[in-house]
């Protein structure tokens, strides 16, 4: 896209990804995969969205889970490039599998 477009139109859909809003973060959610039951509630409520739902076999199988059977389910992963550290995922996690720790830079 040129610096100036006619009428101020933006022709690159979703180019906000160039803003790395992860720099806003003061606290940081960290998923404890040993506890994560892969219910996707954090993915559902992430407002950025910066929680990714990963559905490939390799990731699913190679990520730890509290029960082997859960490895058939998609895995959630936090994209720290964008996570602003609101903590909704931490607050909503039904099994307290997300820690919320001070960001260290």
């Amino acid at each position, binding site marked *: 896209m040129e610096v100036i477009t006619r009428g101020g139109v*933006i022709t690159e859909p979703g180019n*906000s990804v160039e803003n790395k809003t992860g720099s806003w973060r003061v606290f940081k959610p960290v998923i404890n995969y040993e506890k994560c039951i892969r219910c996707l509630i954090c993915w559902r409520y992430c*407002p950025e969205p910066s929680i990714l739902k990963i*559905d490939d076999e390799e990731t699913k199988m190679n990520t730890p889970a509290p029960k082997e059977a859960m490895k058939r389910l998609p895995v959630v992963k936090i994209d720290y490039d964008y996570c602003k550290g*609101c903590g909704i995922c931490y607050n*909503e996690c039904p099994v307290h599998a997300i820690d919320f720790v001070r960001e260290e830079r």
Partner: protein
Amino acid sequence: MNYENQEFFAPGHGMCAGCAAPIVVKWVLKLAGPNTIVVNATGCLEVATTPYPRTAWRVPWIHVAFENAAAVASGVEAAARAKGEKLNIIAFGGDGGTADIGFQALSGMVERGHNVLYVLYDNEAYMNTGIQRSSATPWGAWTTTSKVGRANPIGELRPKKPIARIIAAHNASYVATANPAIFNDFKKKVEKALQTEGAKFLHVLSSCTTGWRHDPSKTVEIMRLATDTGIFPLYEIENGDIENMRITYKPKEFKPVEEYLKMQGRFRHLLKNPEYVKKLQEDVNAWWEKYGHHYKK
């Protein structure tokens, strides 16, 4: 086709951490899919998602002004009809842009029956300009124009405008109140609205961490309490048939309104006087006494 695994609302936007509006938007878009045009009223959502030359939108999107999203959507819809295109046309507006300054345009759009889904994300005040009261601000809320002081210990003195019922009275084909914290109900209503022909209106509760004064992590929890205390009831009304309004969700046991109030700074002053809490509880009880029979499992 199911687009739930796709994101049509990109990260990198400038909405506050913990704002509920992006949760509403991302789900409406996931359920609508890519064959969609969005019209956005001026407000936080518009300002924070499109700072030129960046946009968070992966569907076509237009913003014109504050009070006219419904009119712009009417024009987009008419043009799509003229071109023989079948699209989801979705308007997003805050409570000020919808129930106050945009009310006339919305009334016109709904009355004319444009095939548009209008989504009100209601954070109960003018948050983009810095927390001024709107007609959607509830009784007892502190805002910067319903301040709390010696002469007025309550704050906002008027009850919340029942915008969903008012829009339903226009014979809108589908009207519902919804709360993303009551997720299955919310999702069902978005899907139903998208599948219905004609003018649809979703009144969606949307917490504002800054204006409601709460920790960003509490957004969903507080919104859930809004419905579980009975303060923000979830119902739907089809084809303007208000008498047959259907309450779609009822908590197994209502929680006291105080639980909702005490989590938000905007209500903190009310807790100093049990009379105020009692009044609000009585208002909620009265609503459910009057309308509770509309609940259908």
